[in-house]
C-alpha cells in the first residue's frame, strides 16, 4: 500500500494528476517522491507536499485537507484510491477503471467524462458530477458514481451512459442535456431536473417540480428498475421496485428538444396515487 499524507495545505490549487493508483503502481519510493505536481504555476516534487510511505502498489491512501488538490485519480485504469479528508475538483475525471472512495466531501466535476470504474463519496459533492467538459459533447460513458450527501448544479451534464446515485438533495439542472444513462435521486432535486434531456432516465424517490415541457405518461413498475435495484443492493442502496411497495409515475421529455428522456417519480403504496388531473 502507498500512503500519502499532506504536509501543508497548498496556498493556491495544486494540480496532482500524477496521484493515480495505476500510475503509482509501478514506481519505487524515490520515483514517487520525484513526480511533479503543479502548485499554481510552480512545478513541485510530490515529497514537498506529501509524506510518502510504501511503493509499488495499486492501493493508494491519501490523508489530509485536500480541498485545493485537483485531478486526483485522473484517468486511472485500475487499483484503489482512498481519500481521508475532502478532495478537490476533477476527482477521478476521465477514469477508465478502478475504485475511488472519499471519506469526506468532494468538489465539482467528480468523475467527469469517466468511461468506467466506481467513485463513492461519503460526504457532499459539487456540481457537474459525471459531466462533460465545456465544449465536449459527451459526459461519462460508463461506470458508477455514488454520492451519499448533497450535490450541486448540472449533475450528469450531457452524460452518455453509466449510473449516478445521489443520496441527498440535488440543486438545479440535474441531468441537463442527458444523452443516456441513469441518475437516481434518493432525496429529490430542486428545479429544472432533466432540462433539455434527449434520452436517459432519471429516477426520483421524492416528488420533483418538473419543467412545463415534460408530460405525464403513466404509472408503471418497469422491469429495468428491478435490475437497477439488484445492481445497487451490494453497494448498500435500496431502490424500491415491487408493485406491492408502490409504483413509478413516468414523465416524458424534454419536448423543447427531440426528447426521448424519461423521469420516474416514486409513489409509495401507502400514499394514494394522485389523480392524473392534479399532476
Amino acid at each position, binding site marked *: 500500500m502507498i500512503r500519502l499524507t499532506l504536509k501543508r495545505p497548498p496556498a493556491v490549487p495544486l494540480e496532482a494528476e500524477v496521484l493515480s493508483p495505476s500510475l503509482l503502481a509501478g514506481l519505487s519510493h524515490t520515483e514517487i517522491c520525484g513526480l511533479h505536481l503543479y502548485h499554481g504555476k510552480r512545478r513541485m516534487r510530490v515529497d514537498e507536499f506529501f509524506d510518502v510511505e510504501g511503493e509499488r502498489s495499486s492501493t493508494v491512501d491519501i490523508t489530509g485537507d485536500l480541498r485545493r488538490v485537483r485531478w486526483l485519480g485522473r484517468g486511472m485504469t485500475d487499483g484503489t484510491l482512498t481519500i481521508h479528508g475532502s478532495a478537490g*475538483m476533477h476527482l477521478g475525471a476521465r477514469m477508465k477503471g478502478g475504485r475511488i472512495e472519499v471519506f469526506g466531501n468532494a468538489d465539482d466535476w467528480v468523475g467527469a467524462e469517466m468511461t468506467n470504474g466506481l467513485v463513492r463519496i461519503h460526504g457532499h459533492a459539487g456540481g457537474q458530477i459525471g459531466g462533460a467538459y465545456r465544449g465536449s459533447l459527451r459526459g461519462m460513458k460508463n461506470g458508477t458514481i455514488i454520492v451519499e450527501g448533497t450535490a450541486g448544479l448540472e449533475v450528469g451534464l450531457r452524460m452518455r451512459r453509466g449510473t449516478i446515485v445521489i443520496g441527498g438533495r440535488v440543486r438545479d439542472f440535474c441531468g441537463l442535456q442527458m444523452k443516456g444513462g441513469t441518475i437516481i435521486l434518493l432525496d429529490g432535486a430542486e428545479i429544472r431536473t432533466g*432540462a433539455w434531456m434527449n434520452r436517459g432516465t432519471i429516477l426520483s424517490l421524492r416528488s420533483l417540480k418538473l*419543467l412545463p415541457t415534460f408530460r405525464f405518461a403513466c404509472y408503471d413498475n418497469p422491469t429495468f428498475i428491478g435490475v437497477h435495484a439488484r445492481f445497487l443492493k451490494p453497494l448498500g442502496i435500496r431502490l424500491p421496485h415491487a408493485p406491492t411497495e408502490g409504483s413509478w409515475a413516468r414523465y416524458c421529455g424534454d419536448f423543447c428538444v427531440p426528447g426521448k428522456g424519461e423521469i420516474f417519480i416514486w409513489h409509495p403504496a401507502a400514499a394514494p396515487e394522485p389523480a392524473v388531473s392534479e399532476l
Partner: protein
Amino acid sequence: MGGKVTCTLGEVKNRADFIVYWGGNPAECHPRHFTKYTLMQKSRWLPRGRKDRTMVLVDIRETKSAKAADIFLQVRPGCDFELLSILRAMVRDEPVDPDAVAETGIAYDVLEDLVRRMKSCRFGCMFFGMGLSMTRGKHMNSAALLTLAAELNAFTKFVAMPMRGHGNVTGADVIMRWQTGYPFGITFNRGYPRYNPGEFSTVDVLVRGDCDAAFIIGADPGATMPQPAIDHLARIPTIVLDPHVTHTSRLARVHITTAPAGIAAPGTAYRMDEIPLPLKPALKSPYPTDEEIVRRIREAVATRPFWMPEDSPQMTTEQL
C-alpha cells in the same frame, strides 16, 4: 448547444421588423439604443420607421422601457428558463399544458400570438440583459434564448445579441477569443490557455480564495462582486489600474492612475455587436495609459526566464 446567431447593429437598424428585449431596461441603461438602432430609424426596408417595427419587452417588472413596447410580457421572477423552454416547444408545435404556462405569469394565448409573430416576421432580433443572464439559471438562461433564436431560423431570419454593460467588456471577450480561443475563465498556469468557467472565472477564483495576487484593469469588482470575493481581494496583494479611485482601489495595495480611454488615451473599443471602433483622444493626460503600464510590466517580467521547465507535460484533453 446552439452557439450564437448574431449580426451587427447596422443590420438591426436597416432590417429588423421584430425586436425582443429580454431582462433589460434599454430606456434607462442604453438610452440611445431605441433611437439609433432598434425602433426609430427609417430605412429602405422599413420606410415608416417605428410603424414598421414591433417591439416586445419581457421583464419581471414594468420599467420605463415598457412605455416604448408594443407588447409587454411580465414574467414571474425566476421563470425565464421555463418560459424560453415553453417557447422552444411551441415553435416546434409540441403541445404544452396551458396551466404550466400560466405558472410563468403569462397566458397561453399571449404566447401563441408571440410565437406566430416570431415565425412570421421578416427579420427578428432578441436582445437580452442581466435580468436574464444573472438570475437563477445564469448561463443556461442565455443558452436557452440563443438556442431559441437559432431554432427560429428554420422559419425566418432571427438573431440574438447580449446587451453588454459599461466599459469595454465586449472588447475584453473578443480579444481573449482571438488570442486564446476562449472568451473568459482562462488559466495560463501550465503555460498555455485552458478554459473552464466555474473553475477559472474571476468570481469563482476569488470566492474560493484560489489566487494569491490580483491585477485589475478597468473594472471595479470591489463594488459588484459577492462579499467573500471582496474579502479575498483585501487579503491578497491587489493592483488596480483605473482613471478613478474605485471601491477596489480602496482595498488594493497599489493603485495606478491611468489616462481615461477615449478621452485622453487612444485605443479600440468594441461595440456590443463586436464592431471595433477606434478612439481618438481629445485631451492630454499627465497619466500613462493602461497599455503603457502593462507593456512596461511585461518588459520587466520578460527579462526573467520562462517559469515552466522545458519537459512539462500538457494537460490537454487529447492526452488520455
